[in-house]
């Protein structure tokens, strides 16, 4: 398969406060993120020629986000093509991938990718778990939660690689520390290793503090082709590579005797595509910062290996050596990650791109990674089924 660099620039960035936004509706969040992004790009809404809207769970809100219509309506964008993208936790990144492809194909000149999720209009325990049990297959994995599926990986990795509860909790401590530096994060509370380990168990060995909160939020980017960038007006960040891969199924990892539960094949496959386009061969040397999908702390640990930042079984050493903390060799999740920011599913991938782009612009504030030139974002969805990797570069 050919994976060609697409010559796409991100010129507008917008992200709402993430949290329990009881006073903001789905539409409010769409407007907030979209207007920030168009203002940042210095364009009016009328200049948007096509849109991609990512919302993963419309059923949990008030059925908002079932189609592209729900981006058009709050912004009065009538008369242009808008598509809803739904690909579990990779939805946000996939909306950016689709926008990039349409720009590269010449279908439009200015594209908007917006991710939004409104999860807190219901009690968390009444939402996704209930839906999964009521609507999923009556027999397979009944009652398996997202935490449980990743805990199955965690247990096996602990068994094979000598990863400890402290290593897993270390991810949470690091990301919660980073979160204190991000005023848009859901939780801005630093925590100790002991606090993580002693917090209530969700799915053995993952505790509440190893799990991202249920959060409302939205993020938006405006994208154009490289040649349409107006250097006088824009502060562009370029897309070096985009990879997305569906590499296992919903059920198959749990019913496939060859699945080892030691890595996410989807991440490896998506990284290979994205690195191929970007010409990255030694990720650790060629990337300055990473936003990874730490929905549960164990996922971040595995992802170090899957993204090629270290060899198999060595992720624990990166945490023990603090090399992924701000100021370390390769800072990971300086935004606070999903653990601090929360995880409005459809918005997360876009939020990460906004974070990395801001860092590359040098606008990282207290959490700025010094001299960052190239960064990547990573999402993984389903039980490790779907992953996306986007490489962003200060230069085209």
């Amino acid at each position, binding site marked *: 398969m050919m994976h060609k660099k697409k010559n796409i620039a991100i010129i507008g960035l917008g992200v709402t406060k993430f949290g329990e936004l009881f006073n903001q509706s789905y539409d409010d969040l769409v407007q907030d993120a979209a207007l920030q992004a168009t203002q940042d790009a210095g364009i009016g809404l009328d200049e948007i020629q096509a849109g991609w809207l990512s919302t993963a769970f419309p059923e949990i809100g008030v059925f908002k986000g079932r189609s592209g219509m729900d981006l058009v309506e709050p912004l009065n964008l009538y008369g242009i093509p808008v598509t809803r993208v739904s690909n579990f936790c990779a939805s946000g990144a996939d909306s950016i991938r689709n926008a990039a492809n349409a720009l590269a194909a010449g279908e439009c000149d200015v594209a908007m990718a917006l991710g939004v999720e409104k999860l807190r209009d219901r009690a968390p*325990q*009444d939402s996704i*778990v*209930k839906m999964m*049990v*009521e*609507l*999923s*297959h*009556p*027999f*397979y*994995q*009944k*009652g*398996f*939660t997202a*935490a*449980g599926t990743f*805990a*199955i*990986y*965690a*247990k*096996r990795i602990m*068994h094979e690689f000598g990863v400890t509860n402290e290593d897993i909790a270390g991810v949470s401590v690091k990301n919660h520390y980073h979160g204190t530096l991000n005023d848009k994060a859901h939780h801005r509370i630093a925590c100790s290793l002991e606090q993580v380990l002693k917090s*209530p*168990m*969700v*799915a*053995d060995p993952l505790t509440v503090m190893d799990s991202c909160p249920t959060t409302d939020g939205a993020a938006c980017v405006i994208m154009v082709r490289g040649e349409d960038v107006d250097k006088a007006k824009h502060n562009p960040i370029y897309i070096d590579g985009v990879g997305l891969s569906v590499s296992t199924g919903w*059920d*198959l990892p*749990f*019913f*496939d*005797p*060859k*699945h080892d*539960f030691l890595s996410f094949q989807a991440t490896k496959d998506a990284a290979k595509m994205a690195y191929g386009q970007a010409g990255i061969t030694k990720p650790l040397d060629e990337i300055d910062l990473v936003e990874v999908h730490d929905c549960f702390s164990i996922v971040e640990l595995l992802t170090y290996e899957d993204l090629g930042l270290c060899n198999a079984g060595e992720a624990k050493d990166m945490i023990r050596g603090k090399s992924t903390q701000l100021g370390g060799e390769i800072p990971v999740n300086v935004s606070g990650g999903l653990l601090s920011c929360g995880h409005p599913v459809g918005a997360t991938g876009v939020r990460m791109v906004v974070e990395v782009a801001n860092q590359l612009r040098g606008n990282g504030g207290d959490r700025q990674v010094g001299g960052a030139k190239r960064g990547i974002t990573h999402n993984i969805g389903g039980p490790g089924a779907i992953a996306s990797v986007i490489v962003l570069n200060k230069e085209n």
Partner: protein
Amino acid sequence: MSYIINYRVALPHYRISDKVLHPRLGRKGQHAICYTDEDIITLAHQAAENLGESVDAVLFATTTPIFKDRYHASYLADLLGLGEGILALDFGTTARAGTDALLMADTLVKSGGTYNNVLVVASDVYYPGIGKETKAPFGHGAVAIIVSSNEGIAEITQAKSYSSSLSEEFKYKGSDTQYDPRFTRTEGFKKNLGLVLKQEEIDPSTIDQVFLNSPYAKIGFGQLKKAGFDLENKLADDQVTVDVGHMGAAHGLSVLTQMMKGTEGTIALFDYLNGTNYIELKTKEIDTSASASKSEPIESYQDYLQLRKQGKFTGKGYQNIDMFSSEMISEREKDTLIHLVGRKCESCGTVYYLKAARCNSCKGSDFKEVQLAKEGAVYSVTSEYYFPNSFGPTNMVVIDLDGGGRITVQQTDDMFPTEDNKIQIGDRVGLVFRKMMENDRKPNYFWKCKRK
């Protein structure tokens, strides 16, 4: 000629003792009690699974109302994979339904030709009212017996039945008996037993062990003695009632299997309720096959109440969840869901539980069906606290089955979770057939696992 060639008694894992149920009475018995995911179907399945080959008929006995949910012989036959050509008959209403079924099995086999192997299953799950446990020595369980024209453990030498129309001590709910209940005992039971004992074929002097299964057994002992039975030496102890409680429709058969275990010679069973069944067996030798299964005590009345309540699946964890169940899915996927038929890749040999167009290992597209094993080793495991079952976290277990194939199921019989009894990676586990959560419409049966 007809013979009992195989049998199995299936009991739940948990026991509650009389000491806990009614401490002041000084009784020393135990009661087998269903876990939240057991019912007469799962117990019947456990008793009858792989018990005999080429079964021609399934006779299912229970006093748990038939046709409620899916509790009937045809459903059991389907679960056992016996096909639609099978004769599936239900026996119910009275506690002698178990021996009714055995009697019919004997008749079918002796009728010659069509029925050579008949599976008899008796299964009962009865609860006395809360606080009224002294009134009924309840115990849950099932017994499965294969009656065959081939020689086996014991020959059924006699099987007779006499009917009695009297209504026993039956009461409508909330009303008291308006007549002297002894009427049914003397006029019903004693008269009926007398008719049986008049039979010339019954020769008490040849009987090595005898048992009278009836709530009124004691008032019949005089008649048995008079007829010539040596009750001082030959009356069988009802160890079943002591160990697991009165098993309802399964009780007579359960005592029968116990007698077969301990006796070489002739066994006689009188089973009375609304009539008397008389079964006489001649065993060839003492059956020494293992029967004891591991059990665990419930040590407080509170836990027992909780178990009964949770058995209705109204616990907090499930309270707001209406489980999706679909007759279509159950039916079209039953080979996989119930019979554990997997698919083996013809080119690389990888075995899959789920269907796919191509092998995920070698991309081969030719598969042949294989029977998956019901034992294996734990590959990984977690405890779900966010989706608890009735007594603790729901443990989800990824199992590599012996001979290939992987399955992920819940752990069961985990009423008292501790750090010590937690399932760990590498543990040996077995699959057991249990009920998943149910909604009001249809129970969903699937596999769960237990540590070996």
